[in-house]
C-alpha cells in the first residue's frame, strides 16, 4: 500500500493547520459563511440537514487496520458511533461539530489520511476495482495508476477551479467492477494488438441530471503517455466546459455538444501541441517505484481446497450460504476475497459502527494481510483470505453483525443518505431501501432471484447511482410528498447502460410491494435460474415489467 513521503506528510499537516486557523476565524465571527464555505468545502466539510458532515478521502478505497481503527475512533469520539461508506469509496461522518473539525483532520493526518478534494470543482477521489490485486480476471493491478493520477491531480494548480467536479475511475479487469463508463474519465487497462499494456480512454460518462454512458476517445494509449493525455483532456474541458450553467458544466455535456469525434480531435490537438517542457513525464523508474508499494502480499503456498473449511461449511448452513454468496475467486489457489456486507436488513446501507470497524480491522490484521477495501457498492472487502481461515473469519463477522450473506444480491442495495441527512434531498432513501430489503428477507428467495442491483438516490444528483441500477429508484418531491420514480435496465459494468424510466412515480409505501410484483413477474418469465434479471429485461423489454410494476395487488 502507498506510504506517504515527506511531501505528502507536510502537505496534509500544513493543510490541517491552515484549516484550524480558518475554523477559528469562522467561530470568532471574523470570517463570514460566504467566505468560509469554499474553504470548508475544499476540506470536505459540508453543512447538511442536522450538522456539519465531513467527507474523508479513501484513495481508491484502500484501507489498512490502522486507518480503519482511526476511522472508528473518530466515529466514537466525534460522531455518534457511526461512519457512512459512500459510492466514491469514501467515508462520511454526519455529526461532527465545526469546532472539532481541526482535531479530526489532525487525527486523520496521523494515519496518512485527509479530506482534501472530496468536494468542490476539482478532480475527486480516484476510484477503482475493490478486488484489485486479488482478482483472477485482471491484467495488472490498477491501484498504482490510481495513485499516480492522485499524485498528479492533488492540488494541481491548473485544475483546482474546473467548471464542475471531476471523477476518474480505473479498472484492469474484463468485468468492470469500477463503473468506469459512467465517470468523467474512465480508464480501462488493456493490451494492444502487440500485447503491450496500456489504457482505453473513455470520456463523458456520468450520472446526475443528464446521465450519459462515456465514449471511447482512444482505444489504447501507452502508459508513459497517460498523464500527458489526461492533461490534454483536462485542458480542453477547462477551456471549453460551460461555466454559465452548473447543470451543463460537466464534461459529459461538452462531449455531447461537440460530438465525441470533435472532442477527441480537440484533445489530440492539445496533446500534440504540448511542448517538451509541458509534457508530464512518467519515467519507467517512477512507475516502478509506485508499483512496488502495491506488491501482492507474500501469500504462503496452500492447497487449492481446504478440508477444514469444507467440513465447517457442511456443518454450518449459515457459513455455507455466506461462502456461496460473499466470496470471490482469488488469483492464488487456497485464497479468496470476501465481502463484508454493510447491508443488513433494516440498517442504513453503507453505515458501520466504530465497534464493527475495529472488528474488521482485527480480522484484516490477523487473517487478511492487513488489506481492506471499500467497494463502491458501500461494502467492505477483505481481498486476501486463506480459505482455511474462513470459518473463524465468518464467526467473528457474525458476532459483530457483519455476516449478511447478500453480496451482489437484491438486499445489497446502494442507497445515498437521502432526506434523513442530506440538505439537497427530495425524499428519503434509507427507509425505502429498508422496505425493499424486507421483500428479500428470506435468504433462499433472495438467492433464487439471483444477482440484482437496486440503486436508490434521494434526488437527481444520483449519489446512489440509480441510473445504473438494474432497478433504479429516484426520490422526487410531489407537493411535499415523497414519491419514487422507477427505472429498469441500467447497469454499471462493461455493458454500461442508463435505465429506462418506466412510468409515473410511485408513493413511498407503494415501492416495495410494486417491486415484489416485478420480481414475481421476472421469476415467471425468465428462461431459467441462469438468466439474470438484467438479461431477462434486455431480452423482453419493459412491457411485462411495467405491467407488473403498476398492477393492483
Amino acid at each position, binding site marked *: 500500500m502507498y506510504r506517504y513521503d515527506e511531501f505528502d506528510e507536510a502537505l496534509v499537516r500544513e493543510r490541517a493547520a491552515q484549516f484550524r486557523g480558518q475554523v477559528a476565524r*469562522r467561530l470568532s465571527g471574523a470570517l463570514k459563511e460566504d467566505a468560509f*464555505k469554499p474553504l470548508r468545502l475544499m476540506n470536505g466539510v459540508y*453543512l447538511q*440537514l442536522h450538522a456539519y458532515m465531513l467527507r474523508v478521502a479513501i484513495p481508491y478505497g484502500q484501507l489498512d487496520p490502522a486507518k480503519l481503527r482511526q476511522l472508528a475512533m473518530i466515529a466514537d469520539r466525534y460522531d*455518534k458511533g457511526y461512519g457512512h461508506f459512500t459510492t466514491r469509496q469514501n467515508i462520511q461522518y454526519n*455529526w461532527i461539530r*465545526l469546532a472539532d473539525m481541526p482535531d479530526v483532520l489532525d487525527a486523520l493526518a496521523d494515519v496518512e489520511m485527509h479530506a482534501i478534494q472530496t468536494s468542490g470543482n476539482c478532480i475527486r477521489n480516484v476510484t477503482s476495482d475493490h478486488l484489485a490485486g486479488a482478482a483472477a480476471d485482471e491484467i495488472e493491478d490498477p491501484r498504482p495508476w490510481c495513485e499516480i493520477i492522485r499524485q498528479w491531480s492533488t492540488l494541481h494548480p491548473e485544475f483546482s477551479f474546473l467548471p464542475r467536479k471531476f471523477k476518474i475511475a480505473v479498472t484492469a479487469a474484463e468485468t468492470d467492477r469500477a463503473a468506469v463508463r459512467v465517470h468523467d474519465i474512465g480508464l480501462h487497462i488493456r493490451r494492444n494488438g502487440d500485447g503491450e499494456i496500456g489504457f482505453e480512454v473513455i470520456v463523458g460518462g456520468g450520472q446526475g441530471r443528464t446521465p450519459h454512458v462515456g465514449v471511447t476517445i482512444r482505444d489504447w494509449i501507452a502508459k508513459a503517455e497517460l498523464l500527458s493525455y489526461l492533461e490534454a483532456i483536462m485542458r480542453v474541458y477547462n477551456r471549453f466546459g460551460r461555466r454559465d450553467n452548473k447543470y451543463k458544466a460537466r464534461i459529459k455535456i461538452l462531449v455531447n455538444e461537440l460530438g465525441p469525434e470533435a472532442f477527441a480531435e480537440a484533445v489530440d490537438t492539445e496533446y500534440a501541441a504540448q511542448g517538451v517542457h509541458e509534457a508530464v513525464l512518467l519515467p519507467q523508474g517512477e512507475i516502478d517505484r509506485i508499483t512496488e508499494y502495491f506488491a501482492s502480499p507474500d501469500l504462503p503456498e496452500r492447497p487449492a481446497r481446504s478440508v477444514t473449511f469444507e467440513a465447517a461449511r457442511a456443518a454450518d448452513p449459515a457459513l455455507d450460504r455466506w461462502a456461496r454468496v460473499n466470496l470471490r475467486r482469488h488469483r492464488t489457489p487456497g485464497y479468496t476475497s470476501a465481502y463484508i456486507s454493510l447491508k443488513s436488513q433494516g440498517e442504513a446501507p453503507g453505515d458501520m459502527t466504530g465497534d464493527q470497524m475495529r472488528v474488521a480491522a482485527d480480522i484484516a490484521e490477523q487473517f487478511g494481510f492487513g488489506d481492506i477495501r471499500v467497494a463502491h457498492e458501500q461494502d467492505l472487502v477483505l481481498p486476501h483470505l486463506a480459505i482455511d481461515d474462513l470459518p473463524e473469519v465468518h464467526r467473528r463477522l457474525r458476532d459483530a453483525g457483519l455476516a449478511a450473506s447478500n453480496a451482489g444480491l437484491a438486499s445489497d442495495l446502494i442507497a445515498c443518505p437521502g432526506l*434523513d441527512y442530506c440538505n439537497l434531498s427530495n425524499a428519503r432513501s434509507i427507509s425505502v431501501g429498508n422496505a425493499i430489503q424486507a421483500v428479500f428477507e428470506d435468504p433462499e428467495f433472495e438467492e433464487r432471484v439471483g444477482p440484482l442491483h437496486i440503486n436508490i438516490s434521494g434526488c437527481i444528483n444520483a449519489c446512489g447511482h440509480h441510473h445504473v441500477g438494474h432497478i433504479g429508484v429516484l426520490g422526487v418531491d410531489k407537493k*411535499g410528498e415523497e414519491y419514487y420514480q422507477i427505472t429498469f435496465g441500467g447497469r454499471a459494468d462493461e455493458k454500461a447502460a442508463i435505465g429506462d424510466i418506466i412510468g409515473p412515480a410511485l408513493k413511498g409505501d407503494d415501492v416495495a410491494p410494486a417491486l415484489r410484483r416485478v420480481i414475481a413477474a421476472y421469476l415467471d418469465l425468465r428462461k431459467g435460474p441462469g438468466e439474470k434479471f438484467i438479461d431477462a429485461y434486455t431480452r423482453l423489454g419493459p412491457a411485462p415489467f411495467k405491467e407488473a410494476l403498476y398492477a393492483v395487488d
Partner: protein
Amino acid sequence: MSSARPRLAPETPKMVTAWDTATGRTVYMTPSREWSVNIADGAVLVGAAADDALAFAASDEGRATDPYVMQVSPLGEIDGREIIRETIRAVGPTNHPMFGKQAGNP
C-alpha cells in the same frame, strides 16, 4: 446567504431557522432573537416582522449560519410542503430515532 427554499406569502405564518455555527445543529429564532434547538421556543412571525427577523438572522453570522424562513401553523407546528424535511430537521433522522432531539439530544 439563505438556502433556496419555497417562497412563502407575507401572510403565511413562519419561523426563522438556521444552523448553529459551532455545532451545525438545527436552531430556531426565539421571540427575543436568541437561538434555540427546540422548535417549541421559536417565534411565529408574519409579514414585515418575519422579514426583519430574517434580516437580523442574516447579520448574526457568528451564531447562526444560512438562515431561512420555514412555514409553520399559527401555533408554531411545522406546516406546508416541506413538512417532511422540516420534521426531520427538527427531530432527527428517521432511521436513527435515538440520534434525534426527541431522544433528548441537543
